[in-house]
């Protein structure tokens, strides 16, 4: 089911100051996709999610779930959360401690007065799906963190909602379990063919899980795109910087060449992607990720996008070297194959692939 949000605004007041948790957000979340809201902590992700499920009342705007208008400040419409037919996994999982696993999972069906034998079937199916067969009579307090997370997922899914929402569901798990659960979640969600809205501040989680990522900052949506677009060719400096490690180099657009442009930078002229069609003469920023800075034996004058520099620091971290390369006043961070034969202080040549460095409006 598609979700449409128009002009959604929510302000909080604390200690006499106004906080714009949501600032006139327009957003369409396409049906049957895994849609992630990504942004630094405090940017309004949770607030947006809670407005969609109906736990928070926005100050202005409209929310459609499918064709139903569930919130409109103008038309004075508020559909309470229990009538929105959504499933949600909370950050704390919110497993009811006084019930066993069966009652926790059966609860959404019990509220709708489903016959008992159907409830039993559905619960068994949901528990089987999250690989907790036979846990029905386990008290909720006797579950590990990972198991609580699965029970929460089973509960959100049991009534077969059209939309399921997640608020940082992995943030309470330890690092190793988080990675495993992320993979499982990905396979659950692809299997289900359901609209999933996923909130996280962890960029790897967002990249690994999503069909589409919306990056938020200070109550606004900055950019929406698929993971590769966001990582390789984002339109905004904030997004490029937030989604992964990035070297940002200042300069001016010198000449357009189809999809690309020649960019006069602090370290020389570079051919780079210019998907945003930044016009000639405008100040811009070049973004190149550390793993796309390639060591080369060629010399500067022998090809495009090749520069000479000094290997200033070099740290071996097992799977790679982490290095810093100095070119004039510019310091570029890079990751280098662990098999390369270099040491700190070496003079080196590096190359940027024109398709893997891109221009951002400054």
């Amino acid at each position, binding site marked *: 089911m598609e979700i449409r949000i128009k002009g959604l605004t929510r302000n909080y007041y604390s200690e006499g100051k106004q906080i714009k948790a949501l600032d006139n957000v327009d957003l369409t979340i396409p049906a049957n996709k895994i849609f992630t809201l990504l942004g630094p902590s405090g940017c309004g992700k949770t607030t947006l999610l809670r407005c969609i*499920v*109906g*736990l928070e009342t926005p100050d202005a705007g409209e929310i459609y779930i499918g064709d139903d208008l569930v919130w409109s400040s103008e038309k004075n419409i508020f559909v*309470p*959360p*229990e*009538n*929105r*037919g*959504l*499933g*949600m996994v*909370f*950050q*704390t999982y*919110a*497993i*009811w*401690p*006084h019930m066993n696993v069966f009652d926790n999972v059966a*609860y*959404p069906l019990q*509220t*709708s007065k489903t016959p008992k034998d159907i409830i039993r079937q559905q619960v068994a199916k949901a528990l089987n799906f999250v690989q907790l067969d036979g846990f029905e009579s386990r008290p*909720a*307090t*006797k*579950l*590990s*963190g990972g198991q*609580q997370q699965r029970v*929460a997922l089973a*509960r959100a899914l049991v*009534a077969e909602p059209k939309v399921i929402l997640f608020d940082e569901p992995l943030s309470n798990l330890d690092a190793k379990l988080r990675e495993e659960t992320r993979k499982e979640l990905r396979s659950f969600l692809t299997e289900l063919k359901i609209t999933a809205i996923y909130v996280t501040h962890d960029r790897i989680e967002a990249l690994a899980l999503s069909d589409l990522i919306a990056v938020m900052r200070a109550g606004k949506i900055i950019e929406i795109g698929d993971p590769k677009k966001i990582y390789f060719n984002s339109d905004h400096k904030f997004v490029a910087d937030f989604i992964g490690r990035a070297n940002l180099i200042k300069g001016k657009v010198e000449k357009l060449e189809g999809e690309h442009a020649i960019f006069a930078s602090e370290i020389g002229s570079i051919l780079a992607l210019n998907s945003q069609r930044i016009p000639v003469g405008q100040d811009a920023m070049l973004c190149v990720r550390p793993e796309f800075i390639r060591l080369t034996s060629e010399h500067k004058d022998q090809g495009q996008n090749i520069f000479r520099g000094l290997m200033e620091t070099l740290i071996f971290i097992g799977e790679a070297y982490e290095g810093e390369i100095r070119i004039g006043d510019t310091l570029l961070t890079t990751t280098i194959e662990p098999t390369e034969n270099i040491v700190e202080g070496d003079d080196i040549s590096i190359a940027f692939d024109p398709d893997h460095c891109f221009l951002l409006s400054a």
Partner: protein
Amino acid sequence: MFKKPTLTTTLIIIVGFLTLCPVIMLLLGSFSQDFVSFGQFTTVKYVEAYTDPDFADILWNTVIFTGGSALVATLLALFLAYVNTRTDLPFKFIFKVIAIVPMMIPHILFSVSWVLLLNPSNGTLNRLFMDLFGLTDALFDIYTLPGMILVEGLLDLPIAYLIIAPAMSAFDVSLEESSKVCGASNLRTLMRVTLPVLRPAILASAILVIVRSLASFAVPSVIGMPGRIYVLSTHIYRNIATGFAADFGKAAAIGMSALAASITLIYVYRYLTSESGKFVTISSRGFKPTLIKLKNAKYPMFLIVGFLSFILILLPVLVLFYTSMLPYSMVPSAKAFSMMSWDNWIEVLKDPISLLSLKNSLFLGVVGATIGTTLSIFVSYVIVKVRSTASGILESLSFLSFSFPGIVIGVGFMWFFVRTPIYGTLTALLIGYIATYLPYGIRPISSAFVQIHSHLEESSRVCGAGPFYTMRRIVIPLLIPGIVSGWILMASMFLRELTLSVVLSRPGTEVLAVQILHFAEDGLWGPLSALGIIMIFISSALVILAAVLGSKLTKMEVVK
């Protein structure tokens, strides 16, 4: 339901009245000549109270009594906590029993049982020793300061233990281990490392026991007064108890200094407990300390601990029961056993005043706990869920009465009640009880509220449940255990209440503990013991119920 700000304000007014009214009335009363001339400022009562030639003695007695009790209780608690957490002593469940069970025995009955054992003229133990060893003098006279200190120290042992034991088990054992690596012996390590690191907990325990014993009335009245040893609480009582010449102005003037001392001490206690987090190094590794092997000392040590729990728990009940079956006190012998009968029980159950006091106490217990719990539910809700400046004020107000000595609050309330029609009614006692024991209700209920994270309600809503269904299936089931244990705790406090009642109770509003005090003053030990056993029975039943429900409540805590 309610608009939150108005609910908070209403509660601040109610709780503010309950806690501040007696204090303000006490202050005003202390500057008045008598009830009639209330409001005409005079300092004559202060002059009277503090120029009394006896006053220096009373103050000195109070210092020795409270300090001595703190020493006894804290040393015993340290010993027990150390043995429990650090040695391989068998049967450790006994420590749990020591920490909880003495709460079932009302303080006045505990004191009476020691009088029955160790009074100089016919105390059972004293007589036993005189007969066995042909002594002419009593072995130990309980009607002395050391006697008072011994009994009060034992009464406050559970409190001290509950403060010291957690600190002892949270203590980072590697500090001790490194001392031993440096070649220090167990004893040296204990003296040079363990005790100094535990200092804040030890001080906190000592101060809390001082506050408790300053407010204590049972021991000073049952043991101190017959030996003509007066402390502040009994000195206040002496001024108001003499029917026609009751001097509530002087009582208030004396009460002011008890109140001031108590508030100051609680302030120091708060400071210490907030600082102690920095001091006691809590090991996050969760290593179990290696237990010291007691080897040959195991059984003597066990005997000591077993003996302590015997005199704390079993002995008082046995003595009371034994006394309740006899026409007059005598050493256990074939003759004594042949004379046993239920006469005292029958007498008590026919005595109209005893029956009235039983009825009144039950009424106060049931009705008072119900009203008190209801109030606690609202207060806890505001403290936990509303989180504003106003709710902060409410929280401080609610826990203020913890630091007020009961008898002083009673005098303060008296100054208020005489100006109202509820003077001398059960309602007056009801209000006084709720005001003094409100924290006992708020504690368990607010911890139940804390447990209900807002997500638990919200996820129910998202799952398709309306607000009422959510109330019924999520909120109320999670609150019930806290509410029930709050209710039972308050009811059992009210059933045994002495210090406040001794001031507020009038003819017609007698309560159990006051009736027992009167029996003690008249030396009617048989009927006293029968009534006492009835009281212990009712209050134990309640405490056991509370403990069972409480353990269910803890089991319910969400696993992190």
